[in-house]
């Protein structure tokens, strides 16, 4: 992977998705929590598609089921009913360790609170997904340095998360999510803890990754400032898709 400080090129080995190819398809996804009388239905038969080479925004009020939906899409939760087709493979066929391995190889995560390991340096944090895949530490650290350089943190390789600003930490988290060249990037409120400028830097970075690397990127957000970055916006309300495929509308915002 040739990573420059300004751009992130599509890796030769990674599958390139065309702009309109559907890489994640939610089919009548229902999710319920609890048992008996305390059973709560959070998702009421969601149908939605996430397209490759696009940045898809998932928006909606608190408690509408956004987090549950991306947890299911990322393979962290199983749906109660329905299925999610991930790059042509039904999630229902990926059980236990196969799903864990699928996640390790194909999904990158960016969390609201970054979730960097506080005792590891920026480079070491970024190297984790490669270590999970069994790469040697020197090789993983070498690649981590390249990716950090690409997100503009080449001079902060050996700093601990506590020595970085919020925006820098989130960029480290993005580098960590990208280092193993995943096909799907799942971002949960990546700008929520950042100021306006840092949020813009982070969204610029994500946009560049989504478009240029040919990956599918889904961003859950409350932040109205980032709506302009979305190629497609999925709006949820009360566990249902309020207005699916509202892409064009969002582009005109």
């Amino acid at each position: 992977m040739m990573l420059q400080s300004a751009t992130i090129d599509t890796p030769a080995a990674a599958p390139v998705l065309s702009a309109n190819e559907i890489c994640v398809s939610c089919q009548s996804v229902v999710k319920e929590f609890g048992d008996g009388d305390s059973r709560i239905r959070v998702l009421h038969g969601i149908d939605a598609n996430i397209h490759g080479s696009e940045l898809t925004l998932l928006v909606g009020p608190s408690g509408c089921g956004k987090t549950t939906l991306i947890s299911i899409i990322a393979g962290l939760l199983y749906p109660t009913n329905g299925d999610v087709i991930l790059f042509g493979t039904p999630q229902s066929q990926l059980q236990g360790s196969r799903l864990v391995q699928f996640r390790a190889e194909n999904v990158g995560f960016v969390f609201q609170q970054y979730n960097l390991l506080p005792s590891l340096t920026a480079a070491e944090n970024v190297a984790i997904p490669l270590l999970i895949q069994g790469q040697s530490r020197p090789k993983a650290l070498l690649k981590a340095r390249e990716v950090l350089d690409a997100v503009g943190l080449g001079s902060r390789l050996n700093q601990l998360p506590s020595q970085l600003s919020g925006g820098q930490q989130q960029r480290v988290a993005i580098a960590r999510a990208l280092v193993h060249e995943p096909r799907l990037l799942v971002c949960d409120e990546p700008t929520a803890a950042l100021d306006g400028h840092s949020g813009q830097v982070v969204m610029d970075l994500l946009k560049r990754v989504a478009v240029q690397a040919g990956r599918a990127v889904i961003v859950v957000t409350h932040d109205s400032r980032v709506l302009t970055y979305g190629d497609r916006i999925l709006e949820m309300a009360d566990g249902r898709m309020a207005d699916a495929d509202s892409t064009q509308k969002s582009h005109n915002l």
Partner: protein
Amino acid sequence: MNWVAWKMLTGDRAKYLGTVFGVAFGVLLISQQMAIFVGLMRRTAHAAIDVRDASIWVMDPEGKNADEVKPLSDSDLYRVRGVEGVDWAVRLYKSLARARIDNGEFRQSILLGIDDHTLVGAPVRLVAGSLADLRRPDAIIIDQPGYRLFWGTGPIELGKTLEMNDHRAVVVGVCDTTPPFQTFPVIYTRYSQALGFAPRERNQLSFVLAHQKDGLDPQQVCQSIRSETGLAARTRPDMIWFVIKFYLESTGIPVNFGITIALGFIVGTAIAGQTFYLFTLENLKQFGALKAMGVSNWRLVGMILLQATIVGCIGYGLGIGMTAVFFESTQNVTALMGFYLPWQVAGLAAGAVALIIVLASLISLRKVLILEPAVVFRG
């Protein structure tokens, strides 16, 4: 990922050191108290431990321990000698005597009277003097702590005198022995001499020390002595355990030490378990993130066990080291003389640490194993 586990563990120095010292403190308490307990029990059997040339101890069947005996008659010695399988049998006198030095100071002392002819039961290691001099009139050999108690810390001088039961005793040697339970001075003399140093009773013979003929099992010979004489006969190891069991069953020592050892275990487990659990709890989001990124449960279990093992090993090393330093630095303190760290105690402490670590990590493991990776999306 082992490297990540190591970095996670040592990243928060305060918690890391807290957990390590929790284990170390537990090990120190457990091993030090256990070693002192073992040392105390060993002290109770000092006489049987120090008599190395006789394999069989014979005493009155009603005797409760080595310090509480009903004297035998001289004819009992001959009866033992007459038992089939007994190679030889000699006298041993053991009692308490009040010993007084020139300036009037006195100490209760343990008086051991060994066979005049064979000197069976004599101390093995002499610091000063000669065993042969014990055959001289009024001669005694005193143990080193006893000598220091009477005459202080200066260079050892032979020829000093004691008075016991209005009899003059001359120090012809100073020896090293197993320190006795009561920390009294131990005085060796010939049997005939001992009878003069101690108040007179009709019967004076405390024990008969015997040895079996070559090729015979001492247990079988003991059985023969018991059946033919009606006396209590025990092999040396059995005699040691007979005395130790008396103290175990008749005193509060095991209960008190047991409580301290249990407290060490509980405190060690509580500190290590709680700190380790808190460490896991605070890193739960990180563990969740690792889980989300594709770290399997088994690998997480491995990481936590590795962290626990590192803490256990370092904590054990520090704790057992502190115990060793304690015994090393107190080896010349009279009251603590003879206490040491037996390898068995170090082994038991290692077992206790393993248990502490397993308990501490089990609580944490449960938390991590039931952790849903989706927790990382909750704010």
